[in-house]
């Protein structure tokens, strides 16, 4: 076996950098917390930051690596959130906290993955614009369905309905688990920063490893030229499906983390709607499409900024919109690209220019 450190490629050094960055950030935050320098409000932001960063990793896999636009990622997060919260509610008193939460996260990921797979069957035969709109449609359908779903439990077992609470026919000892538009209340508070960080770290490692594997290269070949990739024998649909399902699994785990941090889980548009999916897209675009590290950094910064700059609250969404438009035009307009290439920092310091664009998948 060759010595791994010496034969490390530039890509794996980059990956190690990303992982070290995450670990360093985690250690710094833990030290600050131990020293009591993190106020309660900021402390409460830590889990959401992990959720959003994980969602950014997940969406970056679809947008940056697979090269397709998914506008329904909030829907996968919603599925993961509800599936895991449902599980936790069902087994609230019959299992220890640790195994239950671990299983809940796995279930959130798996159920979201199943949804991703099922949705992928019709969706991944499509490309580009169609795929974007169908994933958007799916996100909305999932939100709609969750809002009409009633599940209750009594001594006779589980009862399902999509009409109302009364039609469940629960007995005296019954309790509601999912109450339609009221969602799930009383999910145990199991999420904490350590778990959130681990989910983020594992997702990042999985995605980075994928990018540098044979499968990852196949997926990126499909992104860069679908027809050419098909003609050298890459099974396009299978790889697209694989990346899409994996992305859904990660989103589901993030959803599980999210739901165990809320006292009442409701599928409101603000939480799981189209706007949320757009927010994740803003993370990916601002971080540099295809760059996992960039997506995570953008997610953290954009989640913290509104907290720091409260006076800008009204203009936040407007700024996101402008970020999307300006980033795209600056990065993709042939003239501005030529300008950036000619005046880049590397050029000024006399370094050789290697990367063509932010698409290398660091």
């Amino acid at each position: 076996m060759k010595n791994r450190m010496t034969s490390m490629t530039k890509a794996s050094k980059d990956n190690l950098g990303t992982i070290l960055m995450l670990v360093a950030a985690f250690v710094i935050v833990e030290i600050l917390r131990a020293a009591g320098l993190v106020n309660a409000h900021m402390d409460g932001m830590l889990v959401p930051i992990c959720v959003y960063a994980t969602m950014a990793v997940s969406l970056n896999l679809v947008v940056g690596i697979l090269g397709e636009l998914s506008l329904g990622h909030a829907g996968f997060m919603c599925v993961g959130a509800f599936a895991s919260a449902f599980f936790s509610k069902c087994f609230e008193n019959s299992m220890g906290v640790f195994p239950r939460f671990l299983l809940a996260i796995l279930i959130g990921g798996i159920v979201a993955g199943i949804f991703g797979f099922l949705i992928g069957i019709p969706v991944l035969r499509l490309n580009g614009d169609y795929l974007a709109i169908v994933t958007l449609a799916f996100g909305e359908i999932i939100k709609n369905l969750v809002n009409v779903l009633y599940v209750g439990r009594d001594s006779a077992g589980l009862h399902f309905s999509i009409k109302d609470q009364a039609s469940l026919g629960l007995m005296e000892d019954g309790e509601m688990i999912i109450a339609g538009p009221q969602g799930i209340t009383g999910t145990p508070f199991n999420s904490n920063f350590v778990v959130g960080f681990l989910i983020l770290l594992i997702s990042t490692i999985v995605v980075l490893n994928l990018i540098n594997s044979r499968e990852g290269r196949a997926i990126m070949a499909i992104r860069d030229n679908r027809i050419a990739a098909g003609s050298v024998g890459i099974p396009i649909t299978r790889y697209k499906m694989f990346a899409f399902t994996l992305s859904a699994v990660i989103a589901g785990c993030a959803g599980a983390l999210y739901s165990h941090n809320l006292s009442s889980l409701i599928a409101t548009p603000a939480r799981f709607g189209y706007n949320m999916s757009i927010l994740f897209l803003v993370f990916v675009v601002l971080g540099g499409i295809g760059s996992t590290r960039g997506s995570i950094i953008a997610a953290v910064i954009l989640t913290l900024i509104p907290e720091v700059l409260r006076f800008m609250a009204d203009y936040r969404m407007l700024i996101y919109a402008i970020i999307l438009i300006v980033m795209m035009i600056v990065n993709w307009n042939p003239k501005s690209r030529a300008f950036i290439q000619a005046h880049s920092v590397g050029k000024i310091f006399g370094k050789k220019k290697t990367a063509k664009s932010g698409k290398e998948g660091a």
Partner: protein
Amino acid sequence: MVSFINYLINGLSLGSIYAIIAIGYTMVYGIAKMLNFAHGDVIMVGAYIAFSVITTAHLPVACGVLAAIFGCMLIGICIEKIAYKPLRHAGSSLAVLITAIGVSYFLQNVALLIFSSNPKMFTPIIPMTMMTIQFGVFRVQTISLVSITVSIVLVLLLQLFINKTRPGQAMLACAQDRGAASLMGISVNGTISLTFAIGSAMAGIAGVLLCSAYPTLSPYTGAMPGIKAFVAAVFGGIGSIPGAMIGGLLLGVIEIMGKTYISSQLSDAIVFAVLIIVLLVRPTGLLGKKVQEKV
């Protein structure tokens, strides 16, 4: 039976509004080869312009409608020039799509800042005394008849424009082959601007009609009808104007029937299920042609 026919007319009325929006989508898709995600929000802008002119400034209804049409036309051209034109030769459909989403989000949030998120009550363009018309046992909303008539007239005019006039022929040429069209002396930029102008003007009309039929107006009014109209355009076969009309009408009827007979909360889900079925069974839509992709 009477109620069924009433639902059918409601469906056709909603469907004709979808059809007008879908035509805008389909024209832009056919000629500029991009999905103008912001099209739905242009509807909302049109409705707000009409609202400001009619309700706030107390000007006649005709002024409001004209202001909406020309305002939307202007906005459509500006969007194209500022946001989409720089990316026309970028060679990345993903970049264009994300920009379009950004524009859509931008319009929504500008409307949110100007008009706040509180819904406004839109004054219907039909006078109160003529809200409904009695045909024997049927009582029909006037706005339904107006919507259906307007959409039919617009489709006929548009077909005439495209097939009989020089700018219309230029549009067809650009849709077929942009490079060859420019070699024939057609101004491609001008033609694309014209397409956006026509599509956006129609979105303005759709905005007025939509808010006359469903009079609450908020910054998110346009988003859902916009997406559904895209479904209609795909249903009919993207790029085809008669297809957009048929797709729009069918989708309107499906939505109202689904709302009435299946579940009112799931009506959006039903519409999107239609999209998925169409894409699975006949991805080119009802009137679309299959195009082989080339390397």
